[in-house]
């Protein structure tokens, strides 16, 4: 059985586009077409509004929490072409940094794994991806841009977990360098893998299977050192699971073709369950069995027009 632990009335005046909890799952941030971002304390099943963040002048599409070791930072991106990083102080959030160097709506923001420092990736409808890195010596943000990452626009970005590449057993883990990678999905129907090389970002892979806009991509948290897994979903109604042993050669498996467009894919904390949701009003949960096949373990369906009669 599944139960609704809590039904949080966000008080947004329009549709919610993203809902993310902080690292510990104690606070929930939501963003909406009503241009605002709200933060709730959801500790112990409660719902207390902590702050209502107003700073965007257009629908806010996505939000992301930083790792707590960088303090409590929240990034938001909007149709107003801006990315705002908010900083919490005693439960209240204030604008910490604003990045306004995109020419169109910014659709996706994701903080990198903390091992890379405080780094944020942003994907925009102008087709480019920005990578913002905080330089602690100068207290400044450095921005790098991948131009023309996706024709017509980039819809989603997701970071690869920080895994030390397997080198010979003799080398110390310190000396093995972490390679920064991220995956993006766009309106060119492509899923692309990017790798940081020296001081710039290069396209490492272009994964072509989807036949319509890619709406979400999610790089799975890594268990075990050798396998990378990415889930992507698209308006072609399919979810594809991409796997690779070395980060360079990728295989694709179609998880399923759904009844309607698929909007979101989300991995559980240890990457063992994938939640898929979309236009068919359904959330389905998927798990890989021991034979490596993906199976649906549960459906959560919404709707049927049963409005609360109370």
């Amino acid at each position: 059985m599944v139960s609704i632990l809590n039904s949080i009335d966000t008080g947004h005046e329009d549709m919610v586009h993203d809902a993310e909890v902080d690292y510990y799952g104690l606070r929930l941030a939501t963003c909406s077409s009503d241009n605002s971002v709200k933060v709730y304390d959801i500790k112990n099943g409660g719902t207390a509004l902590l702050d209502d963040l107003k700073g965007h002048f257009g629908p806010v599409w996505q939000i992301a929490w930083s790792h707590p070791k960088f303090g409590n930072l929240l990034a938001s991106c909007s149709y107003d072409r801006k990315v705002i990083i908010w900083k919490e102080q005693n439960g209240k959030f204030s604008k910490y940094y604003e990045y306004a160097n995109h020419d169109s709506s910014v659709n996706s923001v994701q903080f990198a794994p903390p091992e890379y420092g405080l780094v944020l990736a942003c994907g925009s409808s102008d087709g480019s991806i920005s990578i913002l890195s905080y330089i602690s010596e100068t207290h400044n943000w450095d921005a790098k841009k991948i131009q023309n990452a996706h024709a017509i626009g980039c819809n989603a970005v997701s970071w690869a977990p920080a895994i030390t590449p397997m080198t010979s057993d003799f080398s110390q883990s310190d000396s093995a360098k972490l390679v920064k990678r991220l995956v993006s999905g766009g309106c060119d129907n492509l899923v692309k893998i990017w790798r940081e090389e020296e001081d710039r970002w290069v396209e490492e892979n272009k994964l072509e299977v989807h036949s319509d806009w890619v709406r979400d991509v999610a790089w799975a948290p890594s268990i075990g050192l050798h396998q990378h897994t990415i889930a992507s979903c698209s308006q072609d109604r399919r979810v594809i699971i991409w796997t690779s042993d070395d980060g360079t050669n990728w295989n694709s498996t179609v998880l399923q073709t759904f009844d309607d467009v698929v909007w979101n894919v989300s991995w559980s904390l240890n990457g063992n369950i994938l939640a898929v949701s979309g236009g068919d009003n359904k959330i389905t949960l998927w798990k890989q069995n021991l034979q490596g096949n993906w199976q649906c373990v549960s459906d959560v369906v919404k709707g049927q027009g049963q409005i609360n009669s109370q």
Partner: protein
Amino acid sequence: METTVKTFIIPNELCRRAGVAASWLSINELGVFGHQKIVSQVDKPSAFAPSDASVFQLRQDIILFKPILRKLVNEANGTFLNVQNLTATASEHKPELLKMSRQYRSIVRACLENLQDEVMRANGDYREELQNYITIFYSVECIWHLCEILFVDAVPGNIVLPHLLDWVRFHFPKYERNAATMLSGDLGGLESHPDYWETVIGSLLQGRIKVARALLKLHSDAETQPFKVVDQCLRAMPVYNMFSGTSVAEFNMQWNHWVVDVQSKIDAKLFISCYNLNLIMKLAVGDEIAWGEIQQYCEAWYELLAAWLFFTQPTVKSFELGQLAKQCITKMSIGNRIKHLDRVLLAAMEFDVLQVIKEVQHMTENGWFVCHLTDLLYHAGRLSDLNVESENFQPEKLRESFLIDYGTLLMGHKSLWQVGLSYLDHCPQDGLEVTKLLLPRLPLDSELRTQKIVREAINRNLPETAQSICKVQGMVCKNRGRLGHALAWALKSQDSAFVSYLADKFLRQYSESGNLTNADLLDNLGSCILASDRLIFLGKYFEFHKLYRAKEYKEAASLLISLLESKIIPNYFWGILLTETVPLLECEEMVFSSTDTFTIMQCLEEREHLKELKDKIALSRLAATRNLARALVHEAQLN
């Protein structure tokens, strides 16, 4: 698998109209909200505005988190760890493993008793909920017991019937209970009791011959001929005992003999005067019609199976059970009404271990059962001798997948996370990786809890994880203005930039207030002081203060000089440090040599532009010059 997918409905109008999106919230929770991606983006309200915008926090029902089942979780963990220790150390552990299996069962039994007590007191929905748990754990107990007999216990000669009878008696205690009441009550004329014959036959079916005879003796006609003959027959009934020295062949001969004898007595119509006696004897010789008649006394097919085997195939071998079980199910014509519990038991009797595990997975106790049972069967070697069609079947992977799921589930609970960890610890392949992902996610509610979490990380040799958690706790303390705690955590995090940042805060605080706080911590830095230059400076400066307060002026002075000569003085601190020289220069006892004084004077000249020295510089110079004079005279005398 498809048939087991369950669908749950969240009634919400926006979700129905727009579609939904979901994102994981915490280990076991999912956030769901009505959502539709805007295809052609424009800066205006969505097609659904204004709309209610709720986020639903969903979680699978986790009955294991109910306080009443806490004991089950904790005690089973103890046994689980014992099993791991046992199999890690002993090479021949089968007999011990059986003990562990019984331990698990007694934990389930205790849990059931506890639930039964509680159900008496409960009412309403809670009562129903408890009833539901009782059903679940009754099934668990029943399946576990059978699996123990078939897969864990080494039954000599594969003669499984005595164990099966034990199993049936344990799970269908009605007849035993009734018989005990009857035997302990008034003697004689027992047949007036409405359950008399049912109890006699029921006892016989469970193989309790002595009990049945005792009951028959208390019938008012016990002294009549038919009763006496029945008693004789039952007394003479051969019962197989593998330790008696009789071979199976010999026993079968005796058995056939006995059956022929009883049959001849039935044919001679010796029991015809009493319907029930006749029935009993017909059962004993396996008369199909008679067996058809008494099926009503059996609640379940396996109860009938054990009884049927007792009277027809007492030396049945365990590997023959599957076939016979199916016959019993057909006999009772319940093939189409077979329930989950029946399916699992049948699979066990067919020695289809994988099917058992598969079915057990879908029980609703959140993986408690499948995790512990699979682990036990794995250690009993029951997973490695399977003929599995799939080539890459690895028993250790199967075991590990259940352990990881169970451990992960518990990691999501505020106070059961350490129990969860202990399961992950015994997953050689991915356990540590999962721990690495989940451990840092545990909310740091208090310093005590943080210390616990850090200790667990260190115990598992995860220094980076420990450091990262310390850093976060340090940040929390810093934000609360508790600099001392923050510094202590920062040191544990080995993040030198953070340590420097905090040391700086201390120094600035001092430069503003003149107070050095957290003396204890600064006094006991030990080798930690090397974490950053700024901290070295802070530590040394604190030491200087201590010496000065203790009036050890000479030592204080030499420490001050070495600080001035070092390159680690923060710019904002020069003023303070140079001011500190004045009282020492003016000290009654001469504490600076001429060289020292030159050093001070040089520093003064280099820093004369400093604002904070502006009104002190003249005084400082004067003090330095006077001391220089004193020192030179003194040194000249020495030479």
